[in-house]
């Protein structure tokens, strides 16, 4: 007698059960909802795990970043992509209106964001609004001043941009290879404060160029992000023009003998903000993320970002970092009334927002920068 093929023996039952058990994770995986992908255009670090992992896990989303280095680079990337490529755009504030003019970003609903938690100076940040229309929401900022090797220069010596001309650092002055911060700092040294170091007439522009050229014998090189880190860390460069705590803050944590100060002539503020890309359909989750980043928890992450530290524009952000990491709050001046309190410096007129040139074209500044490098 032959055994029926349908006859269920105990062995076959066990084999079947084992097969089902082994394939179950795959079935579950297939049934699970696919994570929503958020395409972000931003500076390096903004979509790294220390910033977004928690939000990703809580909201079943996945950030897909495209990183750039500099506002021009950002504009180039976005102009080469079809609408809808980027859901979320992290931009330097001075480029927001260029994004707007080119039609790359959407109008935002101001009522969705916690502006009442912002310091008053940042509620209506220049360039983020046209009349009462909001185009971008500030999320963090930082200060550019004199960055130096503490073995080479004293803090007192570094308290003026003239430190870059100090014979102690001849041949060891590096430039972050972007014209705006370096030229802005020399403009400040020349006394161009009102209305802004970037809003200067032709005579002042000529004087800035002459002053910049006089720095040439001091210069040891021009560096990108990685080169700036390496140059300061290995002591090849003893002072760096055009940067600030966003570089030295990371190196300090690593034990390097470097620091940044805001000199007497004043500092330049870089500002980063979120805009919504034209063509996206993910408004709800994007707005949720922007609010998350502006929340005390998000601001603590932002202030301590592994890639480069930033400062908080919100009062609750300051309070949160004071509780979460008092040492970092002290180091970065996020304590009301502290010597390094950025709001105090802003109110004293010692900080100036980085901007594009107002009376010359960006091209003029960049061409001069190329001439300066090859001089």
């Amino acid at each position, binding site marked *: 007698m032959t055994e029926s093929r349908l006859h269920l023996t105990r062995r076959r039952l066990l084999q079947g059960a084992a097969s089902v058990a082994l394939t179950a994770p795959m079935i579950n995986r297939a049934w699970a909802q696919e994570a929503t992908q958020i395409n972000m255009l931003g500076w390096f670090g903004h979509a790294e795990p220390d910033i977004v992992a928690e939000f990703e896990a809580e909201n079943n989303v996945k950030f897909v970043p495209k990183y750039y280095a500099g506002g021009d680079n950002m504009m180039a990337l976005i*102009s080469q992509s079809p609408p809808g490529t980027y859901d979320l755009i992290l931009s330097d504030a001075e480029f927001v209106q260029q994004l707007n003019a080119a039609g790359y970003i959407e109008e935002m609903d101001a009522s969705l964001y916690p502006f009442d938690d912002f310091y008053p100076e940042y509620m209506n940040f220049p360039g983020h609004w046209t009349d009462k229309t909001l185009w971008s929401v500030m999320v963090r900022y930082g200060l550019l001043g004199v960055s130096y090797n503490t073995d080479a220069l004293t803090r007192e010596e570094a308290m003026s941009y003239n430190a870059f001309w100090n014979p102690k650092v001849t041949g060891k002055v590096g430039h972050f290879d972007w014209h705006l911060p370096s030229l802005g700092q020399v403009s400040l040294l020349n006394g161009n404060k009102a209305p802004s170091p970037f809003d200067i007439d032709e005579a002042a522009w000529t004087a800035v160029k002459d002053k910049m050229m006089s720095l040439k014998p001091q210069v040891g090189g021009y560096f990108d992000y990685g080169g700036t880190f390496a140059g300061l860390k290995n002591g090849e460069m003893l002072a760096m023009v055009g940067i600030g705590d966003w570089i030295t803050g990371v190196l300090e944590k690593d034990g390097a003998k470097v620091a940044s100060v805001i000199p007497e002539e004043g500092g330049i503020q870089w500002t980063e903000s979120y805009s919504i890309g034209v063509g996206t359909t993910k408004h709800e989750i994007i707005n949720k993320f922007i609010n998350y980043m502006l929340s005390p928890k998000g601001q603590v992450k932002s202030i301590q970002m592994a890639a480069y530290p930033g400062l908080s524009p919100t009062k609750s952000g300051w309070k949160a970092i004071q509780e979460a990491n008092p040492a970092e709050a002290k180091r970065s001046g996020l304590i009301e009334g502290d010597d390094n309190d950025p709001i105090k410096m802003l109110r004293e007129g010692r900080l100036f927002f980085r901007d594009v040139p107002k009376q010359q074209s960006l091209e003029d500044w960049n061409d001069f920068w190329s001439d300066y490098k090859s001089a």
Partner: protein
Amino acid sequence: MTRRFDPYPHVLRLPLILWQGAFFVIPLIFMAAMSFWLVKNYKLEPNFVFDNWTRMLGRGAFWDAYWITLWRAVLAGIIASAIAFPAALFMAFRLSEGGRRFALLCLIVPFFTSFLVRAYAWQVILAESGPVNAVLGGVGLVPYTMLNSGFGAMVGYLTLVLPLVVIFQTWSLAAIDRNLIEAAGNLGATPLRVLGSVIIPAAKTGLVLGAVFAFIMTFGDFVSPFYLGGSKPPTLTILIIDTTKSGQQWPRAAVVAVVMIATLFAVASAALRAAYGRRG
């Protein structure tokens, strides 16, 4: 009598022609055309104006970059050829077949690692706090600035090209008919005369090709002048990056690229004529 058309050789060369057409000739034509375009609000607009050419060629910074790039490429070709020649002579005439194969393998091994990684390694070695300066300090010498200088850039160039130049020279020297060398010796020529009158002329093709490859690779290298030379002074490749970074000026960068390609064509043509030309 008419010859029968034989498609076989044409079929064999077709893939190469298609490849070169699709990935070299067409992009080259596109790039040349783009050099006449304009950029408005960070967007490229097809046009036919000479603004980019007049602007770039009229700038001192462009010519400064051009001459320094050309000079460094020539220098790298000469230095690499000079350093490579004794090693290639040894490998071609003194090493056994197996030894030569092993030496060639050793020359290829560096290419297993990205050139950028090798440049970063040189940053550590050449730094003022690096091992080279530690040795110099140990014998009482002051630290020498090697990084972010022309010297640093040249170290990078030679790292890139030297193994290739040695390989070219070795192949070419190893292929020389030994009877010629023996005959010259039997006729009373000194070793120096044999080298100058027999070996070098016989190996001319490989020697010139090695030098010209060194020139081409150095001329177009970005990593060495940027990461080891500190962009000081900028070369044409750095100028291209600066130009594209600022305001999306790809058309102006295309002008630089077209000039670079024209220069490379001119140099390579002259070199090939020298390499394969009639021997005097």
